[in-house]
């Protein structure tokens, strides 16, 4: 059973010739720059993170203009202010942390293309793009690839850029991406304290994020007692994978590059599992599943149903993935940058009660 097939292993030979030529031209272009700007990695080998403009930058005021006054006024406003850099958005600390990992990797492996590739994926109009580019310049972010689709859906482009993770403020786009098999999450604005600048910290919920929602279905439909019995009985049967499993795998691959150079103690990537499961009972299945996948997680925290907020506040992740809005809101209120993964049975419930599903939009 093949998992995580985002990057092709072999592309058609004729495509290769053209692609290799373009790649050689890009290498030559960046080599000729006097600024020593690092060139973006070859997409096939990179871990590609696509961020929307509203997650990278704070565009709350501009969004309001769009909603109140319409598209034309919004674009005019952006063009008028295109030399005013935008303020950092909710994904900004995450992006800076990715850049730090890249500079560490480049020092250890100067010829490797196994790096983070950060792509700006926005359906903004290209005229708004000038302000976005100026803002990227202002913070000297290493973002060299972008798609400004002028209103069209980014989903096709996510696939074309071989995206490993997509972050956006638009839950509809995120849901569509997940349905297309792309790891994605909706980010929410929060006031956060200063996060680590030397270590990327990524925290994951377990069920319906790293793992499928199969066990969560049991909880919702049959209650906790049945859930505990079930997990004990099937302790040695690995859970099916969830939408963020492949992203954890990609992080693990980069971590091992540091371990190979004796940098385990000083690794600039750290991963956390923050689960409501309990270590005494339902937790074993989770650890065994990870082991069966050959994946490591640095810290597994079993809360046995206790609130996640205080623990996350201590961890201070650059991003925390959870499938339940209830947990997202709780974490957000305590200053944790949270990202909602709209997957599985959790979307139909709020605080344990079944939500009435609105009729699907045509």
């Amino acid at each position, binding site marked *: 059973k093949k998992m995580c097939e985002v990057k092709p292993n072999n592309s058609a030979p004729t495509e290769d010739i053209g692609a290799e030529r373009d790649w050689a031209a890009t290498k030559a272009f960046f080599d000729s720059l006097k600024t020593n700007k690092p060139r*973006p990695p070859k997409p096939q080998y990179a871990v590609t993170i696509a961020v929307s403009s509203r997650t990278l930058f704070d565009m709350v005021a501009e969004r309001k203009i769009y909603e109140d006054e319409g598209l*034309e006024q919004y674009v005019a406003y952006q063009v008028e202010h295109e030399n005013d850099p935008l303020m950092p958005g909710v994904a900004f600390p995450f992006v800076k942390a990715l850049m730090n990992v890249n500079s560490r990797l480049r020092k250890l492996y100067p010829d490797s293309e196994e790096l983070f590739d950060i792509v700006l994926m926005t359906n903004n109009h290209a*005229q708004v793009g000038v302000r976005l*580019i100026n803002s990227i310049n202002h913070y000297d972010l290493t973002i060299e*690839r972008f798609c*400004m*689709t002028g209103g069209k859906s980014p989903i096709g482009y996510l696939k074309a850029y071989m995206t490993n993770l997509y972050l956006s403020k638009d839950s509809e786009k995120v849901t569509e991406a997940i349905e297309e098999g792309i790891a994605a999450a909706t980010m929410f604005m929060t006031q956060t304290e200063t996060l680590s600048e030397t270590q990327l910290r990524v925290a994951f919920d377990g069920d319906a994020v790293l793992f499928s929602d199969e066990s969560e279905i049991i909880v919702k439909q049959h209650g906790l007692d049945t859930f505990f019995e079930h997990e004990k009985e099937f302790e040695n049967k690995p859970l099916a994978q969830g939408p963020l499993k492949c992203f954890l795998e990609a992080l693990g691959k980069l971590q091992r590059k540091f371990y190979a150079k004796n940098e385990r103690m000083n690794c600039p990537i750290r991963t956390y599992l923050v689960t409501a499961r309990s270590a005494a009972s339902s937790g074993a299945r989770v650890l065994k599943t990870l082991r069966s996948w050959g994946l490591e997680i640095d810290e597994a925290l079993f809360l046995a149903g206790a609130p996640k907020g205080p623990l996350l506040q201590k961890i201070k992740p650059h991003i925390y993935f959870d499938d339940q809005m209830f947990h997202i809101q709780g974490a957000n209120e305590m200053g944790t940058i949270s990202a909602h993964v709209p997957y599985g049975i959790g979307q139909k419930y709020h605080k344990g009660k079944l939500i009435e599903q609105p009729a699907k939009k045509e």
Partner: protein
Amino acid sequence: MVSTIQNTDVKQKDADRAVVVAVTSRAVFESGADGDDVYGMGVAFPLLQALQRVNERLLEENPAESLLFDVVLITTDSQQQQQSSRIISSTRHYGLEVSRFCFSSEEDFVESLQKNNVQLFLSTDRNEVPQASQKGVLSALLDRQEAPSEQLRVMFCGDAVNRPDAGPMPASRQAAQSFSAQLGEMRQRFGMSDSPLSIVLMTSHGGRESCGGALRTLRSRGVNVDEAYCLAGAPLSPILSVVRPHFLLSDGFSGLED
């Protein structure tokens, strides 16, 4: 030998203002069985329909609009030359907004383009495109598209846009600039959304500054780009199959950069 026939079914455009686009009849029509009076629809058929739709919308905005696409069908194929009446009747059959038919030989088709003041030449023939380009006529290669869009989608390949002007500007570069300026003017007749025309910029090798620079350069020429894709070495064909432009322009160097 070059000859031109007017299509009396279609109102002739303003020679000073219209944007003359020549498309080869071989690209527009597909030869069917010999017995058929009417040709089948070729690779360029959806493109012609998209050009027509832009004209319709321009006239909706302003019935007295003179900045329109003026489509000329050029036949260079000696076999098709003998079928001139079939080309004309097929054009009429489909109601295509073609104002003129040009018939010439392979040797002097470029002369025919220049005589007809053609600003953009589109062909499926890989030899014809660079031939015309070298003589200063802006040209682009047409390819079969899987799901051509109704909206006319024109892509500018921006890596060449920023090239410093070393020495006298090649004639085709001039042609590219004036065509893009006219396209930009046409685009401004429509709003941000629901436009029958979309101007797309793509850079393949440079980083964000290359694309950003091209955006600004085009804007200074009156061309407000709608969509921008900066590849910086990422594979081109997956992106192209999502963007689906009707054709690509490399600022006057189409076909020669291969």
